[in-house]
């Protein structure tokens, strides 16, 4: 305490420009570095590029050898993903296409040109909505609960702290494969099977271990001095948390949001076992497209691509938090 006052909080915190980062040599290195990063990023994205192309290919183009780089793009994959279809005789299809195409929607025309007729929307639309609700709410739960628990573990002398932290971690260790059967029994018993609540709580529980560990790691890095100063100045502990710790921990919170969301969004095994219709999420649906008469590569690609976009948007929106440095780290020692 005393040495804290000797240093004195009155000095303004100056965000410095690194002295070693302004020379021409450093500038040149900076550019080379940026070029390398962009090259690596492009290389890593090649498979994603392949996937995007496949999403716009027809069934036969998707498996042509050699793989086609140039092809006539089609929305077939997306039509197959979003609709239920029935086969129509080729002659009838031609007739419909030729007659008065203005009546037909874009999707209907695409379906007809591959000899099929749309009979209704597929399950996928509803499942996507389920995914949004379940993944979104469970992410919020795990980050909020995880933040407060992590704060308590980081700042207070919690009895049995190391053991409790290990317990929290250990909940992530038992292979999911054996947990599903007891969970299934438990959920059926308590009426949580195929419900939003059941899935939200399950994903929250699953993400909590990572959330607590990560956020504790980040909160440990925030110097105690700011909170102490605030407490001495008459803030309550809760005020200090919201006004001092929370803004400082934004990088950690953003990272935790990203990881929790990605897990809950993509989880497959539990969703397959513990939901049947009402609360079923999209990943099992994408995977079951395998079954129906050969692998529908373009529909799978379209599904995966569309399914990637919401998460990618969230990450992109959070990028500034993810990449932000310390705002005032001058008291560290």
């Amino acid at each position, binding site marked *: 305490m005393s040495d804290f006052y000797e240093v004195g909080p009155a000095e303004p915190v100056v965000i410095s420009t690194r002295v070693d980062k302004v020379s021409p040599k450093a500038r040149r290195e900076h550019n080379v570095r940026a070029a390398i990063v962009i090259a*690596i990023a492009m290389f890593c994205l090649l498979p994603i590029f392949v996937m995007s192309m496949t999403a716009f290919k027809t069934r036969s183009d998707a498996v042509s050898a050699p793989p086609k780089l140039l092809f006539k793009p089609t929305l077939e994959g997306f039509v197959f993903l979003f609709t239920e279809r029935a086969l129509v005789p080729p002659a009838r299809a031609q007739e419909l296409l030729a007659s008065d195409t203005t009546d037909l929607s874009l999707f209907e025309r695409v379906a007809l040109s591959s000899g099929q007729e749309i009979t209704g929307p597929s399950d996928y639309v509803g499942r996507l909505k389920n995914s949004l609700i379940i993944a979104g709410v469970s992410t919020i739960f795990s980050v909020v609960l995880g933040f407060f628990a992590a704060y308590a573990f980081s700042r207070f*002398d919690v009895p049995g702290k190391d053991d409790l932290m290990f317990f929290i971690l250990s909940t992530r*260790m038992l292979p999911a*494969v054996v947990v599903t059967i007891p969970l299934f029994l438990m959920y059926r018993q308590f009426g949580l099977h195929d419900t939003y609540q059941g899935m939200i709580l399950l994903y929250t529980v699953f993400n909590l271990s990572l959330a607590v560990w990560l956020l504790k790691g*980040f909160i440990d890095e925030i110097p105690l001095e700011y909170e102490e100063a605030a407490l001495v100045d008459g803030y309550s502990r809760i005020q200090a948390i919201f006004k001092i710790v929370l803004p400082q921990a934004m990088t950690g919170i953003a990272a935790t949001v*990203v990881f929790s969301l990605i897990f809950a969004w993509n989880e497959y095994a539990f969703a397959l076992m513990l939901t049947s219709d009402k609360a079923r999420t999209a990943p099992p649906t994408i995977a079951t497209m395998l079954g129906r008469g050969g692998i529908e590569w373009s529909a799978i690609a379209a599904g995966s691509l569309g399914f990637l976009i919401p998460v990618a948007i969230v990450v992109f929106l959070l990028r500034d938090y993810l990449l932000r440095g*310390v705002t005032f780290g001058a008291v560290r020692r």
Partner: protein
Amino acid sequence: MTAVQTQARTSNVQQQKRRRGLSDRAIINLFIWPTLLLLILWNAFPLFYSLFLSFTEYSAIARKEPVWVGLANYQDILTDPQMWKYFATTGRYALVTVGMQTLLGFGLALLVREKFKGSGLITTLILIPMMLSPVVVGLFWKLIYNPAFGFFNYLIMQTTPGKAPDMLAGTIARTPVPNLALWAVALVDIWMWTPFVMLLALSGLKAIPDYLYEAAVIDRASSWFQFRRITLPQVAPLLMIAVLFRTIEAFKGFDLVMGMTGGGPGDQTELIAVNLYRQAFQGQFRTGHASALAYIILIIIIAISNLYIRYLNGLREEG
């Protein structure tokens, strides 16, 4: 500042604060118990029920009650040389994938550490592989590795029919190459999860205050010295958390491999978690046997995690 000093100082402040607002004890309980309660409620039954099942002969699809067999399942697994082979494969796989993810992830984080034009967008793009569903990733790489119409062979420019590698079948020019399929799968794992390590390493790097480097530059310290004495120790705690979670997943993950090879060719990519899945959900549904195997895996993971955490705490005390 040592931990003891920190605690002494917090409790000092705590004493002053006791009368204002909630007491510290109340805050601790309020903050920790919702999390602990959820974790206990959701894990207690599955944990104990599968422990019980691991001592029984039981199949989830048979309409028969579990029959107590004592340690027979454990004995069965631990005396089966085939199982030891799967464990060895998993060990190698974990070492290579987690090792490469750490190296590449940390390297990438060092590269994107300083902002440049568009670095936000580029970082988002680099994270994309991690955002995909593992099942889908497995399927897609199967398409990419396909010797007839996949892109992979075109990328490495080995497309002559009959001579080109078939990565997932583990052959080059129709001759089997030891472990080729395993490394092909490992490559996908590395591709998918390097961003995870990168993101955590990056946030660790971003938390290092500039003045440490400035002091080092003024003292004319070499960049190697800066890396060794500032960057590495400061980033280590978060990097270790990333490595810890990746290692746990490497022992548990089966979805990538199931999507690509299903354990084949032969048993080349039969990781222990793949075998566990097979026992639990394929063929006979040997639930009791699978539970015993899961507990063995759990014990291994606990042992490894303990080593990591001890090392991590060592780092914390130094720092």
